[in-house]
């Protein structure tokens, strides 16, 4: 998949911008605050119908304006596809493909495969387990529709069971039959989710390790571990075993909503023992693995957006990463960076065509 042209009106700090990216490597160079990340966010909008950074659509409208429009033409197997995203204050989001509006935005998700790598991804290491479950769920849901249904149903059954536990506590009563029907739902939807997560990680972990090795040139051994009480016992047994605890705490303490992904570096927890550079490489390897996984499952080359990821990496790693993404395992790339002098000599070495853009105060221009 290739982005052939992009036009913005009133999007973030852009009054108007039109650009025609190269089908290989594109670099947006500018000082902080000039708007280079906003170009990537606009591309992200076309893939996911929302901003990577700010989930409130109207806050992405240029200051003092009432609407924004992002339009993009993509090429898929030699055919053009036009996408339109329009946000007007106080109105429903408009999202069109070839001038036809989608009935549901969920129909669009997955149509433009795209992976964005940004410094904000470090939340995968620093935040709680929910962020890591979301990462895993997001990748699986891209190619497995029933997975998302199971997740939504599981969530509903969980809310019902928690409400029931709360009412038991408040009314000082207990009814095993009432509880059993919600246990049954949690098991029906939770067991397949556990299986899918397990199967996914079996395929995903080797990809991740391969990419980490490439980025760091075999520096350390890294691992991901699927931690779930359901690896040892089935959910039925767990719900029975922890019933007393659930009743005391008034919520469900067992199930796939408690799963986590453990990050290890040379067998130690990454969060405590990994240096800043190692953590950064770890997250980039995770995203590269996600990229490869989507490419393999979907059979289409995703777009890759690299937002300011070279900050805090030494130039050897920067070079290794740019070399990697300019191989045939990757397709069209969009990179932002602040340092023209650093990036230019590296790009000159790669075998692929590239285009540099200067970004100054909400304007994008080809750099000659």
């Amino acid at each position, binding site marked *: 998949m290739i982005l052939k042209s992009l036009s913005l009106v009133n999007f973030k700090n852009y009054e108007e911008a039109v650009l025609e990216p190269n089908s290989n490597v594109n670099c947006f160079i500018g000082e902080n605050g000039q708007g280079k990340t906003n170009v990537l966010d606009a591309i992200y909008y076309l893939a996911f119908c929302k901003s990577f950074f700010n989930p409130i659509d109207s806050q992405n409208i240029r200051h003092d304006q009432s609407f924004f429009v992002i339009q993009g033409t993509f090429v898929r197997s030699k055919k053009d596809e036009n996408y339109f995203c329009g946000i007007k204050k106080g109105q429903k989001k408009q999202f069109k493909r070839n001038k036809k509006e989608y009935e549901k935005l969920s129909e669009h998700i997955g149509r433009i495969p795209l992976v964005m790598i940004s410094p904000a991804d470090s939340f995968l290491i620093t935040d709680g387990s929910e962020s890591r479950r979301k990462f895993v769920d997001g990748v699986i849901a891209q190619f497995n529709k029933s997975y998302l249904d199971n997740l939504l*149903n599981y969530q509903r059954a969980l*809310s*019902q*069971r928690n409400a*029931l536990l709360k009412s038991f506590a408040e009314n000082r009563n207990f009814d095993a*039959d*009432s509880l059993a*029907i*919600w246990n049954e*739902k949690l098991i029906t939807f939770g067991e397949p989710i556990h299986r899918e997560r397990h199967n996914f990680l079996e395929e995903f972990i080797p990809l991740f390790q391969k990419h980490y090795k490439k980025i760091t040139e075999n520096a350390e051994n890294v691992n991901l571990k699927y931690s779930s009480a359901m690896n040892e016992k089935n959910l039925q047994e767990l719900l029975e075993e922890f019933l007393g605890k659930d009743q005391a705490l008034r919520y469900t303490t067992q199930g796939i909503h408690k799963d986590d992904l453990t990050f290890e570096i040379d067998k130690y927890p990454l969060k405590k023992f990994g240096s800043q550079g190692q953590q950064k490489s770890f997250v980039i390897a995770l995203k590269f693995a996600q990229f490869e996984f989507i490419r393999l499952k979907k059979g289409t080359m995703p777009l890759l957006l690299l937002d300011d990821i070279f900050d805090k990496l030494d130039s050897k790693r920067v070079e290794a990463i740019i070399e990697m993404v300019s191989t045939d395992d990757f397709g069209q790339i969009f990179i932002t960076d602040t340092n023209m002098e650093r990036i230019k000599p590296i790009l000159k070495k790669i075998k692929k065509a590239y285009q540099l853009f200067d970004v100054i105060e909400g304007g994008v221009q080809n750099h000659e």
Partner: protein
Amino acid sequence: MDVSSKYLQHAVEEIASLPGIGKKTALRLALHLLKRTKSEVEHFSGSIAQMKEHIQFCQKCGNISDEEKCGICSNPRRDPQVVCVVEDLRDVMAIEATQQFNGLYHVLGGVISPMDGIGPGDLNIASLLSRIEDDKVNEVILALSVTMEGDTTGFYLYKKIHQLGIEVSSIARGVSIGDELQYTDELTLGRSIIQRRPYEQV
């Protein structure tokens, strides 16, 4: 709203208390009634009062009724040993419209949903179980919405009724997932009652 008559204002407020009716519509309806003859309006308000006064819930099935027992339960041509369990009386009307069912009904009055504070004790479940034994019911058909709560309620009832040694079936799921029963078209609903399946196979 500022109107010149407090009587009009009271009428508008009452009408606007109905679901889906705003102040503007209420005013339009009130002014319309004002234009009608006195006897017409008396007839109108009287029928509403009479409805509230005389309608009761059938002691057997929980359906609305003018007598202690509803027209369906007291119809000798219907088979009292087959009972179809539904959520509310709109479902009874929907199934009756298909003309495919000749047994009796049992109206639960909702589905189990702890989030909404509804447990088995808040529904007509005890009366269903005692009725099964008293009337020697030999088949119970579950016709509940294909929502998670409808499904869970069905599972709860199945376990209770199955213990009594009674056959439990569920309407065939031509009904798409997440559908409320009363919004399913007659043809689909009629077919799914005829093609009901033993509960275990659902």
